[in-house]
């Protein structure tokens, strides 16, 4: 049923947005997101996608347009990177609290300064607590598939929360991979038209974004927190149904060779594929090492993580952002929180790697595991720095 074609991941993402039949796309170009929005603007211009493409003057406006678009009941897509996300962040938080479903692809890139157009995860970590569902994608197929999954989850009446896909800038956005494309009929079966719970319409006026005085604000935040904490089963159901239709099943966490693994490496995003080669190299040397890849970042899969590392004595967490003055990288902080309630728990070593586009090779994972074994205690270290 599905055809596999060689395609740049950015183009595959844009084609998926077309197949998802988005109504409004508002975006401002920023490297390395550009190929996605350029291709979408071509599709709209050429009449292949019946949507409004709104080329705004900044990312702040892009997300503001998306807020209005979703509020009006349109299927809404945007895409940005790095500084663009920071500029739009005011509205990123607002749309989550307003419960306006939409899909955003974040082509992950480092933040100034120094100026860098290359990949790490410091942009998304700046909006970690913004109230969006957030996933990290490992390869082009996941990116293509999650455009449909993302719209479906975001617009689900049981969820109604915006959905953010993290895809590593250049490392994923600009590579050409074989992508299994779906027939339109399969997409249409999986992704029903968007039916908003509330929408801005003169026949049935509502107020969105009213102010919340101190006597109501806490109740508003509790309602948002409760709604977010109930999303997990609906995300899992959306993955399950996608798998039943396509044969491609996804989970909050993926494991690789974790059977009887005393050492577990944890990664997010495209690094997982490189790490798995490193795992194979170490397994050849009889090192009992496995890999856990965290796909779902928010809501964080605490129980699934505990299960995945239950046999481990040492966990080596790979972060691609720094939390200055914090507990190491943001991922390591979450992993430690997940493990803390357990009576016996593995030691957690934390490396911060791949900042600002620095390459990480399979051999680096071998070296980091050796160092983590040799160096006792809980610590974090920026790996591969020239002293």
């Amino acid at each position: 049923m599905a055809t596999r074609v060689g395609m740049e991941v950015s183009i595959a993402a844009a084609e998926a947005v077309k197949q998802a039949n988005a109504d409004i796309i508002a975006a401002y170009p920023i490297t390395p997101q550009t190929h996605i929005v350029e291709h979408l603007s071509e599709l709209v211009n050429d009449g292949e996608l019946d949507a409004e493409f709104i080329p705004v003057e900044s990312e702040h406006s892009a997300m503001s347009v998306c807020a209005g678009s979703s509020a009006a009941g349109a299927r809404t897509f945007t895409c940005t990177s790095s500084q663009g996300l920071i500029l739009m962040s005011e509205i990123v938080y607002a749309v989550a609290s307003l419960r306006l479903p939409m899909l955003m692809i974040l082509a992950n890139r480092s933040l100034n300064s120094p100026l860098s157009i290359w990949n790490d995860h410091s942009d998304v970590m700046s909006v970690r607590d913004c109230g969006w569902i957030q996933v990290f994608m490992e390869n082009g197929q996941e990116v293509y598939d999650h455009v449909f999954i993302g719209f479906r989850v975001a617009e689900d009446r049981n969820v109604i929360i915006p959905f953010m896909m993290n895809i590593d800038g250049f490392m994923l956005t600009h590579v050409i991979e074989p992508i299994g494309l779906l027939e339109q009929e399969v997409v249409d079966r999986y992704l029903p038209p968007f039916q908003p719970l509330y929408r801005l319409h003169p026949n049935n006026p509502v107020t969105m974004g009213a102010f919340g005085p101190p006597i109501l604000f806490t109740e508003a935040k509790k309602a948002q927190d409760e709604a977010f904490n109930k999303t997990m089963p609906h995300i899992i159901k959306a993955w399950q149904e996608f798998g039943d239709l396509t044969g491609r099943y996804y989970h909050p966490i993926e494991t690789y060779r974790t059977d009887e693994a005393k050492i577990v490496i944890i990664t997010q995003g495209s690094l997982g594929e490189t790490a798995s080669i490193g795992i194979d190299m170490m397994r050849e040397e009889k090192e009992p090492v496995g890999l856990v890849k965290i796909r779902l970042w928010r809501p964080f899969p605490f129980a699934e993580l505990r299960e995945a590392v239950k046999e481990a004595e040492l966990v080596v967490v790979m972060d691609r952002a720094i939390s200055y003055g914090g507990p190491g990288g943001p991922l390591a902080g979450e992993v430690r929180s997940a493990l803390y309630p357990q009576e016996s728990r593995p030691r957690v070593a934390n490396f911060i790697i791949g900042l600002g586009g620095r390459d990480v090779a399979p051999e680096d994972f071998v070296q980091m595991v050796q160092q983590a074994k040799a160096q006792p205690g809980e610590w974090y270290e920026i790996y591969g720095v020239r002293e």
Partner: protein
Amino acid sequence: MAKPENEITWRDLEVGIVVNEPGNASVYCTGDWRSQRPVYATERCIKCGTCYIYCPDMAIKILRDGYIEHDLYYCKGCGICAQECPTGAITMVEEEE
């Protein structure tokens, strides 16, 4: 909303805290914000309507005879009417006086 604000629980709130009762801002008593109150001296009023035009909260009513009345349910006590009145017919006094 039927319940008083201090009895509303998080479960009572609409998704996204949407307000699906249009125009219910009219029940919100902004007069509570006031620290100064306008005092109106009819004998100085020339019925020009300047205060009515300037009031940012539409808290001034023009009566049938052309004189005015402050609606203290909404008046926030900003004092713009007193500032703009050409004859000094409106003065602001502290609420506690």
